[in-house]
């Protein structure tokens, strides 16, 4: 599902019809009870604003208008009122961070890129550039729709408030205290290196998401260069227009043919702008999945973290049990500083030993409880994460197949335009 409403440019003369492709008619989105079915959500406008930021410094930013409308009442023939509010990119970021922390087992949809990347020369890398803003608007709308159609995420109250409640939303998010729940980067890195027995599927998935990120980045980079070069080819043809015109001035019978052919060369040269603008949407579809790879990795990291935690807790429990045993039997199997000091500075009294054993036994009991619940947590996490990953896989396969088809359609459309122009030019030449 890619909702690109970019001021739909439908040529008044032509309509592209796609025939014979099944993939277009199948839908893999299971949006049974999703918000997306009950509510129309759009990011309809973007506006430049100036204001003072947290550090009281004047800044310019873009605000996006989110419009929502309940779907149900429309069926009854009534038009529900449109509710709207303005949000800026940083608020979207806050929302996404909240969702990532609160639902670590979910592959959370990514935001469109913060800064323009993978640009080819004609595109501006400026955040304020109207084309960039427009593409970002579409990306943000897509993000909201993805969240709204996710069976779990769409039910989140903070998300609902993001759509409906302009004032006080930030405070509401901060009150959830989600930042405290967030795992530190360092902790996560540590876990990744030290975990001994992660679920193999997650290891494979992490590997996959790394490779996916790498290959899509490469693809986008080369695609940008390809676009650049193609632009050059088309634009140089514009020079034919001028020289044919000049040449036609000195010719008699050949003049008209040359002149009109020259016009078609101008048309040809100009056509590349629209062609490449359309292709940017394909690039944006790929970018979404480039960023999705990061979301996948986040889920894998969470699993590793939980698994590491579990392993550490188990290890801790084992060592405590061992300590207990040693104290009870009086044998020292493992070296411990305490053991050494007690040896050096005198044995403990039986009472002291009893006390220690009691403390340890208490700790062991607690530890076993904790281990049990951590185990359960871990298994639940794996189960629900893997369910969402399967959902994600299906979505990805569907979306990318669609993207590739629409890319193919773009190429065919470009070819047909090319054939048209050159056929027209050929006719002009034939009249020379």
């Amino acid at each position: 599902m890619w909702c690109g409403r970019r001021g739909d440019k439908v040529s008044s003369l032509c309509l592209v019809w796609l025939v014979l492709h099944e993939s277009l008619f199948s839908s893999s989105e299971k949006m049974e009870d999703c918000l997306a079915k009950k509510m129309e959500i759009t990011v309809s406008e973007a506006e430049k604003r100036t204001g003072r930021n947290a550090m009281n410094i004047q800044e310019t930013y873009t605000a996006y208008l989110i419009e929502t409308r309940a779907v149900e009442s429309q069926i009854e023939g009534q038009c529900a009122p449109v509710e709207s509010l303005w949000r800026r990119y940083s608020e979207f970021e806050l929302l996404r961070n909240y969702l990532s922390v609160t639902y670590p087992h979910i592959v959370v949809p990514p935001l469109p890129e913060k800064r323009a990347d993978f640009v080819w020369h004609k595109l501006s890398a400026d955040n304020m550039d109207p084309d960039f803003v427009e593409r970002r608007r579409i990306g943000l709308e897509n993000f909201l729709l993805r969240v709204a159609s996710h069976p779990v995420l769409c039910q989140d109250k903070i998300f609902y408030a993001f759509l409906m409640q302009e004032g006080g939303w930030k405070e509401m998010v901060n009150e959830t205290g989600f930042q405290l729940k967030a795992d530190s980067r360092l902790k996560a890195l540590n876990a990744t290196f030290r975990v001994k027995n992660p679920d193999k599927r997650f290891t494979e998935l992490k590997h996959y998401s790394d490779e996916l990120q790498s290959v899509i980045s490469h693809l986008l980079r080369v695609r940008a260069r390809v676009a650049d070069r193609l632009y050059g080819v088309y634009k140089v043809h514009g020079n034919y227009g001028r020289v044919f015109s000049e040449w036609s001035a000195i010719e008699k019978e050949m003049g008209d043919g040359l002149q009109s052919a020259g016009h078609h060369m101008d048309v040809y040269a100009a056509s590349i702008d629209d062609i490449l603008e359309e292709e940017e949407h394909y690039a944006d579809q790929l970018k979404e999945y480039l960023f999705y790879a990061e979301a996948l990795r986040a889920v894998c990291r969470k699993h590793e973290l939980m698994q590491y935690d579990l392993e550490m807790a188990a290890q801790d429990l084992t060592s405590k049990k061992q300590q207990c045993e040693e104290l009870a039997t009086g044998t020292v199997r493992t070296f411990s500083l305490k053991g050494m000091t007690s040896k050096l500075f005198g044995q403990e009294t039986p009472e002291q030993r009893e006390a220690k054993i009691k403390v340890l036994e208490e700790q062991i009991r607690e530890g076993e409880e904790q281990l049990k619940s951590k185990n359960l947590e871990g298994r639940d996490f794996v189960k629900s994460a893997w369910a969402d990953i399967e959902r994600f896989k299906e979505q990805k396969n569907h979306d990318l197949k669609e993207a590739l088809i629409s890319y193919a359609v773009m190429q065919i459309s470009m070819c047909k335009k090319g054939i048209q122009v050159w056929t027209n030019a050929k006719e002009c030449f034939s009249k020379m």
Partner: protein
Amino acid sequence: MSGGAASAPKPLPSSGPKSLREMPHPLATSSSEEMGPALTPSPDLLLPRSIADKDLSLPNGTPVDTSSPASSSSLLNRLQLDDDLDVETRDLFVTVDDPKKHVCTMETYITYRVTTKTTRAEFDLPEYSVRRRYQDFDWLRNKLEESQPTHLIPPLPEKFVVKGVVDRFSEEFVETRRKALDKFLKRITDHPVLSFNEHFNVFLTAKDLNAYKKQGMALLSKMGESVKYVTGGYKLRSRPLEFAAIGDYLDTFSLKLGTIDRIAQRIIKEQLEYLVELREYGPVYSTWGGLEVELSEPLEGVSACIGNCCTALEELSEDMTEDFLPVLREYILYAESMKNVLKKRDQVQAEYEAKLEAVALKREDRPKVPTDVEKCQDRVECFNADLKADMERWQNNKRQDFRQLLMGMADKNIQYYEKVCVTVEAQAGIRVVYFPLKW
């Protein structure tokens, strides 16, 4: 004098004289509707009273062989006879093909087979097949320029190639050259005067051309005439409007062709750079396909598709390089040699005017103009008539050549897009249908 050929074929794509019906009779005064204002005969030109009275010696003094069909009276006969002939009565066909490499101790070179089929009386046999190398074509062209200085001689492909940059023995280069040499001979074949030239005949028929070449050199040096047509360095008072116009036209024409050549080269360059990027682009999809399960097939398909596009693009660039650019350059060379002929014409006229003035200054009451001044006048008139007729022929052929060339260019581009279309449609398993919306 220029005139109609023995036969008048339909205008051929490469070159060919106008059909007799279209061509104005050389003795006709004012223009037909085909001749634009640029070709209106100048009022200065005195028309010959009668062809038979003229001493038809060529401007460099070589006497014209009046027994040849190119001579005045038989030409007239041909004209009057051939008015009713079918356009398909060509009697001379020449082709250049079958390039072969010769490796000798001193050098390596290419020869081409030149095949002639003819019913003309000037040829002893109806068919000839000889082997010629570029040198021989170059010799022929020089000979034609010498012996027919009032006519426009078609150009040869460029003589020198930068060694190391272009492979003189590559298939593409040899084929491009062969086509140009074939065109060169066909243009001569279609010319009503040049095709009857003695040197052309020898070129087509002689087993040992080198012997003839040496003989020719010896003869000329015996006669004490320099090979080149030397002009006296006279200053032209007033160039007739039509020739000034032709000169201007050729200047602008060359300029525009030069620009088109540069644009075409630039396009080829950009296309090749685009190709480089595409060659990296395609395989990335393949790599991605290797990561995926369900998407593997469509991704591989895209990769294969891009590969096919690369092939198609390569073919397009090759075609432009081999077929388009050489013809452009040929015409630029053509225009250059034509401007030289115009200069020679100016010289002939200037000489005539100078001599005329010298006579006038003598203040003698001669009833008759001295013979050498008369000769000059004839030369001017012949030159002008030949040149005018050739220019018309050239304009017509140029139009056809460029029509074909540019249509060919459009065709190549259409074919490229069609190839890409087919491969994308096949890979994606879709067909795109356009139809206009009616509101």
